[in-house]
């Protein structure tokens, strides 16, 4: 029965599991029976997941299983698609972010996002990119130089760009651009960071740097990462949730501590997926 490749299981088993909530980061993010639709098409069904504060959760599953749709419901980016609809609750520190009267801009300030393709603002320099959130969200910070440095340090980019902060972001490599985007997301001090396949366009070296960054960031925030790379899920995440669609709406098949998902998953479909029998 134990057919999981030992490499993934040992990768997942060798990392130290973070204990949720040790750093008093709030109660984290929870979803309760989230469904999502595009027009009439039901794309995501009944997802209830807890993202404990100060942990990293990986969402894995084949393409088209609703992972990206799900992650976009967590900071209300879902509603940008004109035909989108939703049911269920997303609780941030116990409060539903879809409750009427909620200020959506404040939600997105607290739940940051890093996208699949690096997207530094082309009209801004590296330094301006990092601090752009302050301007866009109209936040006041007294010592922006310190903030700039600390964000770039935490994103693992400081040593590479500290002498060229006045250059434009487009001059950086893809991996550096993505870390610049992470630094940009950090500057507004979100308590949750959503990452939608942040490494899928990057080489292994850059991917490694970003994984280091994620481990560093998890000390101070909750991280949700969508990834197609199971090695990555095994390396960086404390919990893993497996999503699957059998042609109908995507469902969350199983969620468990990462080393359990990769060593002894409960569901046969999870085991088939993580052992590479399909997907």
């Amino acid at each position, binding site marked *: 029965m134990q057919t999981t490749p030992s490499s993934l299981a040992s990768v997942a088993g060798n990392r130290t599991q973070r204990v949720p909530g040790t750093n008093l980061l709030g109660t984290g993010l929870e979803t309760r029976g989230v*469904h999502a639709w595009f027009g009439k098409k039901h794309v995501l069904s009944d997802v209830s997941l807890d993202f404990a504060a100060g942990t990293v959760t990986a969402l894995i599953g084949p393409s088209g299983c609703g992972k990206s749709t799900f992650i976009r419901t967590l900071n209300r980016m879902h509603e940008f698609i004109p035909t*989108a*609809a*939703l*049911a269920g609750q997303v609780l941030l520190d116990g409060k539903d972010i879809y409750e*009427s009267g909620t*200020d*959506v801009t404040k939600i997105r300030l607290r739940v940051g996002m890093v996208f699949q393709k690096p997207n530094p603002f082309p009209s801004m320099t590296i330094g301006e990119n990092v601090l752009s959130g302050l301007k866009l969200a109209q936040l006041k910070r007294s010592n922006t130089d310190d903030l700039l440095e600390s964000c770039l340090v935490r994103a693992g980019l400081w040593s590479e760009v500290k002498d060229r902060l006045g250059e434009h972001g487009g001059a950086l490599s893809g991996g550096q651009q993505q870390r610049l985007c992470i630094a940009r997301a950090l500057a507004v001090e979100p308590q949750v960071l959503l990452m939608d396949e942040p490494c899928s366009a990057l080489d292994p070296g850059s991917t490694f740097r970003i994984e280091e960054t994620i481990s560093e960031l998890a000390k101070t925030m909750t991280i949700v990462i969508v990834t197609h790379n199971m090695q990555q899920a095994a390396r960086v995440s404390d919990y893993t949730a497996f999503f699957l669609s059998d042609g109908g709406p995507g469902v969350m098949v199983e969620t468990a501590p990462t080393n359990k998902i990769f060593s002894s998953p409960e569901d046969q479909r999870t085991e088939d997926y993580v052992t590479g029998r399909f997907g």
Partner: protein
Amino acid sequence: MTQSAIPTPQTPWAVSPQQRIATGSLIALGAILAGIVVKTTGLSGKLGFAVSFFFFAALLIFIQQLRLRDLAAAKDSLLNSFALLGITLTLIPIASIVSTVVIRGYGGISFGIFTEDMTQASVNDPVDSGGLLHALLGTLIIVGVALIISFPIGLLTALYLTEIRGTLTRPIKFLVQAMSGVPSIVAGLFILSILIIPVTQEQTGLMASLALCILMIPTIARTAEEMLLLIPNELREAGVALGATQWRAVAGVVVPAARSGLVTAIILGVARVIGETAPLLLVSGGADALNLNPTSGAMGSLPFYIWKAFLTGGTQEAYARAWGGMLVLLVLIVSLFVLARYFSGRRVN
């Protein structure tokens, strides 16, 4: 796994009916306040009402957002108010022009005007004698021939600017931009002085088409260039990477991807010239008789028909005739655009 009942899809981010009613009543309150201001102060008339209405409505919504949410949301609502003001200011002249043309032109429309020309009638005759068949067909032929000549030239110019990017790109870009500002009468005079007087010595529909080409090519070239620039470079590279020559990649991938944009280029090109009157007066001759041959003889056109009825007539009949011509021209333009949009959008998705 027990599948619980699927809940109903909701859109909690949508504006709720209560909010709509609240905002609607604030706007109504703004109208009432504006009415009071117009009645009680020196500010008066429709303009005074409109200005104070906008001021009050925007202010009330600003205060509402400030109380419900915060200053940032209130500023956001102010931007929305100004955007609405902008679109209102854009729509008022359009609605006014269209309604005037429809109301006044309606009386000048009858079945007969689409079957007869003006050989048997003068502009001052009753509206039901004579017609604008010659002008309608003349306009279609002149603009059609102009489009047939201009579109390939404009598209090829745009392809030179975006795909070939040769050494002449910058000067040509500059020239095309400068050309799009050429006054239409200059285009007419140009054809008159280099073709009609020294060579053909005859005013024809083709000459009118050539004059319109001078106006149309820069518009088409510039718009097509903008549209082709929107096509991501990855598509060109993907095409070439499959072994296509540059020409095959452009014809098979780039141009089809930009199709809807190229239709926009055609629409803007046609819109630039279809109402042109000045060059047609100089080079098409402006006939009253139906002439379907653009290469010989004078040819009528709708702008010329309108111009003639207004200028040479003086009776109510002549004016009704002119307004009727305008309505036909307007309907013609709108239906051409709708058709173009329909055909450009059909195969894309």
